[in-house]
């Protein structure tokens, strides 16, 4: 008998469960992240209201499925909406013949309704046939609305390692070619303008991110606490800030994310890059400083979402390339009608 209730373990157990379920389903078929307990603590632990949205399925005492979400306030085309974003959906493959996914989904919707959360946002992988989420989420057009297709920017730091990792033949070929063309990231020309984030930067960074978010069709409502969490959780993330005319005027926020493909690699995932108030050379320096740091930490690949949260030129000028869209950004409105589904500009992060 499957029982649906709030996840009662710690982030180590959650990471182990997700990693086990994903590796059993996707090994050698598609790349997938390998979550660490610290990463999930950053994302899901101790955030107000999050534990209630860690919906889990148990068979007796055995964990057999999870559908986590994190409460988040959104700007949606000028409206401010209480909602959540979700990821890490995992079901034990041994329970393939049980209605675990659908029960988790129904319970998550019920909890959103109870709490007045109007929308749940997330990603559905479409670039690989093996990805199970597309069969589940995209079959429910009444409940789950594709917002737009999204892809990534990538910049190999170790092309041979990325070639060994890649599953698609074209990606392997591309990495072999890029080995001939790509050089190591250049150091910043003016490193004195760039320094690590400190908690005292949180208010300034929140203001930068909030302004950028408001310019987008979909974005988070930033305040100092959210900025401190996203940018300053040192066990899982790293942030560099750039000063211009004596003030913090830009930032790059990234984290190490181990990925498993044909072989393991570690990606440096850029979550937010805010450079609106920076001269382009300083913006480029900010990315260069992050790439140099990733390289020195042994990361093999830098990745960023192709979205409004990541401006074009600083990446284009630091040898990032665009890869085709492999995801849908999707919205699940709950007792809520969004004004316009043609939302192009996303100021969100990828999970």
């Amino acid at each position: 008998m499957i029982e649906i209730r709030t996840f009662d373990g710690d982030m180590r157990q959650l990471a182990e469960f997700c990693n086990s379920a994903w590796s059993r389903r996707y090994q050698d078929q598609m790349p997938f992240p390998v979550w660490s307990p610290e990463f999930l603590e950053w994302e899901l632990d101790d955030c107000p209201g999050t534990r209630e949205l860690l919906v889990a399925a148990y068979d007796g005492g055995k964990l057999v499925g999870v559908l986590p979400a994190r409460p988040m306030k959104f700007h949606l085309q000028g409206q401010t909406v209480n909602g959540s974003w979700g990821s890490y959906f995992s079901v034990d493959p041994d329970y393939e013949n049980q209605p675990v996914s659908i029960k988790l989904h129904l319970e998550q919707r019920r909890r959103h309704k109870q709490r007045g959360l109007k929308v749940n946002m997330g990603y559905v992988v479409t670039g690989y046939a093996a990805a199970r989420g597309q069969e589940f989420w995209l079959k429910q057009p009444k409940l789950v609305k594709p917002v737009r297709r999204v892809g990534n920017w990538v910049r190999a730091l170790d092309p041979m390692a990325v070639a060994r990792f890649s599953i698609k033949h074209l990606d392997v070929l591309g990495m072999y070619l890029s080995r001939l063309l790509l050089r190591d990231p250049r150091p910043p020309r003016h490193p004195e303008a760039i320094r690590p984030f400190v908690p005292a930067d949180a208010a300034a960074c929140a203001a930068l991110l909030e302004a950028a978010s408001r310019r987008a069709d979909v974005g988070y409502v930033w305040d100092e606490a959210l900025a401190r969490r996203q940018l300053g959780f040192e066990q899982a993330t790293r942030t560099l800030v750039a000063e211009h005319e004596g003030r913090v005027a830009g930032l790059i926020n990234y984290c190490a994310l181990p990925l498993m493909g044909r072989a393991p690699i570690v990606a440096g995932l850029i979550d937010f890059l805010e450079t609106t108030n920076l001269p382009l050379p300083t913006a480029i320096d900010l990315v260069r400083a992050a790439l140099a740091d990733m390289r020195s930490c042994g990361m093999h690949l830098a990745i960023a979402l192709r979205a409004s949260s990541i401006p074009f030129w600083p990446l284009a000028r630091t040898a990032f390339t665009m890869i085709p869209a492999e995801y849908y950004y999707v919205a699940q409105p709950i007792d809520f009608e969004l004004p316009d589904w043609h939302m192009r500009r996303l100021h969100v992060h990828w999970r």
Partner: protein
Amino acid sequence: MPTPSSPVDPATVLSQLRRLLFALLDENSSHPFESAEGIPDDVELSTVGITSIDFLDFALSVEQQFGVAILDTIDPDELPLTLGAWQQLVCARSPGRRALARGRVA
């Protein structure tokens, strides 16, 4: 599909549910049934070889076939696990049933 004013016949509903399930089973995997009529109404769906995605497909098919809202309104504990339970849910939620109930009140 029943019209809003037509009452639902439980036997017809069960027969249609059997056909929906049989079509789903036939699409995906081997199963022990030779015809839709051979599926017992008390058999646990999880034991007849359908996948978790099929559960969703089945619920969506039921919504479409009978014009009832299920996924947006049901609690996970109410999710039917046998054909008989699905029959009860459809009969309770079908537009015809609601129309009858409204008529009695009026």
